């Protein structure tokens, strides 16, 4: 963990911090996308044909 320095309104990050933030963002995006796919197909597997039963 390194300390960030404020320059006026913004925070300036070191190259290492930028790289770490980018890596974290990529992983979060991938995990969220995988989670959505997993829920989509998981719901189909769980409900099967019942997925079409929608009482009106």
């Amino acid at each position, binding site marked *: 963990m390194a300390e960030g320095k404020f320059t006026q*309104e913004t925070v300036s990050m070191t190259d290492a*911090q930028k790289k*770490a933030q980018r890596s974290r963002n990529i992983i979060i995006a991938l995990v969220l996308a995988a989670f959505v796919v997993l829920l989509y197909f998981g719901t189909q*597997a769980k409900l099967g044909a019942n997925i079409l039963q929608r009482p009106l």
Partner: protein
Amino acid sequence: MSVEAIETKSDDVLISSAMPGDYYRLMKPRVMYLVIFTAFVGMLLAPANINPLLGFIAILCISIGAGASGSLNMWYDADIDAVMDRTAKRPVPTGAVTPDQALSFGIILSVFSVITLGLMVNWLSAFLLAFTIFFYAVIYTMWLKRSTPQNIVIGGAAGAFPPMIGWAAMTGSVTIESIVLFAIIFLWTPPHFWALALFRLKDYENASVPMLPNVAGERSTRNQILGYAVLLALSGILPAVLGFASIYYGVFSAALGARFLWLSFKVWKNGSENEHYGFEKKLFGFSIFYLFAIFAALGTEAVIMRVIG
């Protein structure tokens, strides 16, 4: 917030340099692999079938739940982790991840893993997973670990739940078979950790963690290791006795149990004159192999039974 206000607080602001790998290490990957393995064996043994994708989701949720409790443990234990050789390089003591980040990470993973398991598989397994996380993070980490030398006896229950959760994910129930799987890991934990505590005595002393050898002495620890080894060897053959494993497993587990008992006997007999703790190290190493071999044998048999029907 005004610029002035930001400037006055600038010294307090930290920007994370944590890499994804640091967060992965927060989840105690080696513990996670063991959890995946034992939960998977619990699922294989269960007399039920599950859609493979839902089975995969169940395993994933159980392992993420285990990772979450690991992260919560590292958040709370950062102070003692920092002074123990074995744990000093963990992400929080090294400063790679802040305690707040570890706490948030643990809570988010806990919530997502429990709710996903409940929605996608069943709520009994989700409840057991939530209870396991609570048991490990609150009952063991926050309460027992620093207050009683019986910490790992009771805390060991948290590590024993995964095969029971796997079984519950498949059947929606808790039965005697899953309780036996629980018992094997529960009874295995004390001799495993006390063997480690005997040759890492100084480490735990430095961290003021009341492990049994530091509090009750080496003699009492060796007595208790032997006692638990007897119970473990007996519980190891229970799957064959109760009929959910074959006689071949029974013979195999009896042989492993006998070896465990023999090493525990050596640890009991050899006391503190053995300065290099050779038998304790041997017992610790063998205990890891024992648990792996027992569950591998149970899993292999379950696969064979499923294939040949």
